[in-house]
């Protein structure tokens, strides 16, 4: 891939709404990504392997649980800082962001919110420092959009729980030390259980053949009579609301991340349009190409405003799940459209790995599917505004 010349785009001067610390955090993440990730990301995607050597660096820029309080190893930052870090990571690659959002929102968040004090002290500092990587097991082979139908289950054996079942499509699974797994007890109630690598009967086979999110490792979680100590059950919450609240946090980060992917595609296409000459003119001088660029920056700017406002509401504890659904759905779809138009603007060059656009396009197919598909988020908004549940 060529040198990463990315620069941010801030059409409505939104930086003025950020604090100096927000900008410092964002710019540090951007500089780190340019120095450490951009030169190797294309190769990682080609090899279909998450570059694990980046883990300490991700921890050092605060990508693992930045909003977790300092006493548990986090940075105690607000939601906007978290969003900005996710934006900068996904600006480079959605897979890189996925690793960080799973760790932050789907592993550290439930342990922080629903874990016991012992669980917090045992897991959070090691997850914040990247010494341990976690994964989140909700989706099953037969239960994706409908996780409430899950069949993974555990039985109380007196001094331990016995866990059985299987999860699939699990990001980070192949190399994670810790898995936050959602399973039903004997009464059919959903609970979160922390499963650790090395427990007998627990395996994490890698899933192969992805054409998307290739720089992130995806796998299965298989539980064959796994004995889980009782102290690994998250005591603070039961029912589907537990995993759904984690998804709220992750989806919020994805809303920011998608803006990052869109910004990168726009930035590359804009620069290319000024340099590429056809018919003795830069292609950016043709109205058809200007239409694409003008619409891209308009949609990006709208998404930036929507998402910053969502961040403010989240800071105040006033963002609803439906508001988050709207932002995740809107922004990922926006990024997909931007990527597709940007790719066309690069002509044949847009097809190669020399530019990042095709990789973003492929990645966004996963992003529009995981953490609630595009359709499911529409149904959430539909239910919220009409009061009718159209899921079943």
């Amino acid at each position: 891939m060529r040198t990463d010349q990315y620069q941010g785009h801030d059409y409505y001067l939104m930086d003025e709404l950020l604090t100096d610390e927000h900008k410092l955090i964002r710019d540090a993440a951007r500089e780190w990504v340019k120095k450490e990730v951009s030169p190797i990301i294309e190769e990682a995607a080609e090899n279909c392997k998450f570059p694990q050597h980046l883990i300490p660096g991700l921890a050092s820029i605060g990508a693992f649980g930045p909003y977790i309080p300092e006493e548990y190893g986090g940075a105690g930052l607000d939601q906007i800082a978290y969003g900005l870090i996710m934006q900068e990571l996904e600006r480079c690659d959605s897979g890189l962001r996925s690793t960080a959002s799973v760790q932050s929102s789907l592993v550290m968040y439930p342990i922080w919110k629903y874990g016991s004090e012992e669980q917090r002290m045992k897991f959070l500092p090691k997850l914040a420092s990247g010494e341990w990587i976690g994964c989140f097991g909700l989706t099953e082979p037969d239960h994706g959009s409908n996780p409430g139908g899950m069949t993974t289950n555990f039985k109380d054996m007196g001094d331990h729980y016995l866990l059985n079942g299987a999860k699939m499509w699990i990001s980070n699974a192949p190399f994670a030390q810790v898995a936050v797994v959602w399973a039903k007890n004997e009464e059919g109630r959903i609970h979160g259980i922390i499963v650790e690598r090395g427990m007998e009967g627990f395996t994490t086979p890698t899933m192969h053949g992805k054409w998307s999110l290739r720089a992130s490792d995806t796998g299965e979680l298989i539980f064959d009579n796994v004995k889980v100590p009782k102290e690994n059950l998250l005591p603070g919450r039961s029912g589907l609301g537990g995993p759904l609240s984690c998804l709220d946090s992750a989806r919020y980060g994805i809303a920011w991340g998608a803006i990052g992917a869109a910004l990168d595609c726009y930035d590359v296409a804009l620069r290319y349009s000024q340099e590429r000459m056809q018919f003795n003119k830069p292609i950016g001088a043709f109205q058809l190409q200007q239409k694409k660029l003008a619409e891209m920056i308009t949609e990006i700017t709208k998404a930036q405003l929507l998402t910053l406002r969502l961040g403010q509401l989240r800071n105040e504890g006033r963002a609803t799940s439906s508001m988050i659904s709207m932002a995740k759905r809107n922004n990922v779809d926006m990024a997909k459209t931007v990527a597709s138009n940007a790719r066309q603007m690069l002509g044949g060059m847009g097809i190669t790995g020399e530019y990042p656009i095709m990789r973003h396009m492929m990645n966004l197919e996963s992003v529009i599917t995981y953490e609630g598909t595009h359709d499911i988020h529409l149904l959430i908004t539909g239910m919220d505004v009409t009061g009718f549940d159209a899921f079943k």
Partner: protein
Amino acid sequence: MKILVCVSKAPDTTSKIAFTNNNSSFDETGVNFIVNPYDEWYALVRALELKEAQGGNVTVLSVGGLDYEQIIRKALAIGADDAVRIDAPESDALSVSTHIANYAKDKGFDLILCGKETINYNGSVVPGMVAELLDLPLVALAAKLDVAEGVATCEREVTGGMEVLEVNLPAVISAAKGMAEQRIPNMRGIMAARTKALEVVSVENTTATTSVSNYELPPAKSACKFVDPANAAELITLLHQEAKVI
């Protein structure tokens, strides 16, 4: 070792450059300011390396208004121990140098480090003026710096090779590319910067000795002319009569 690092701000290299007030001032609207790279990447980082190896304290100093605090926080996040902002306009090099010298004169710094120039004005004179005002030796454009037993050894590029200089401390040294490698602030550093001391010093205004009458942008690049390879005569005529280079 007590080290003072002077840091200035500069517009991000991607900024659109425009002027206001009849082209007599730089238009800062929408411009993103960064720490001047020579100050940040080389002077500050080398100061931190010396402190980490030998102990001591690194203070960063800026002359400028409130908008400078963002730059100073970054320097603190990278690892400086404390900071000073001299609350005065950056009128010209002599007034900035006078403020720096007045502040530093009785503080007992062993080393005053600056970048070799700012990337916007490229004046390169502040380090020399500070040294003169404090009556200290100056090594300008050092690409390498080591300190042992009160003596700084500097290397700097000369035509066709390197020059090695020794200077007794205290001294003023300006840093060129090569003195250190950029450090990206990490989250721990950003958090620590929240509570580090930033002293704001109010001063009597020094009057500048120079003022800008107006700025001009360089002439726009004219479009390339393509000459058919078979037409060498036309190329020669163009080089001779239009470009006037032969």
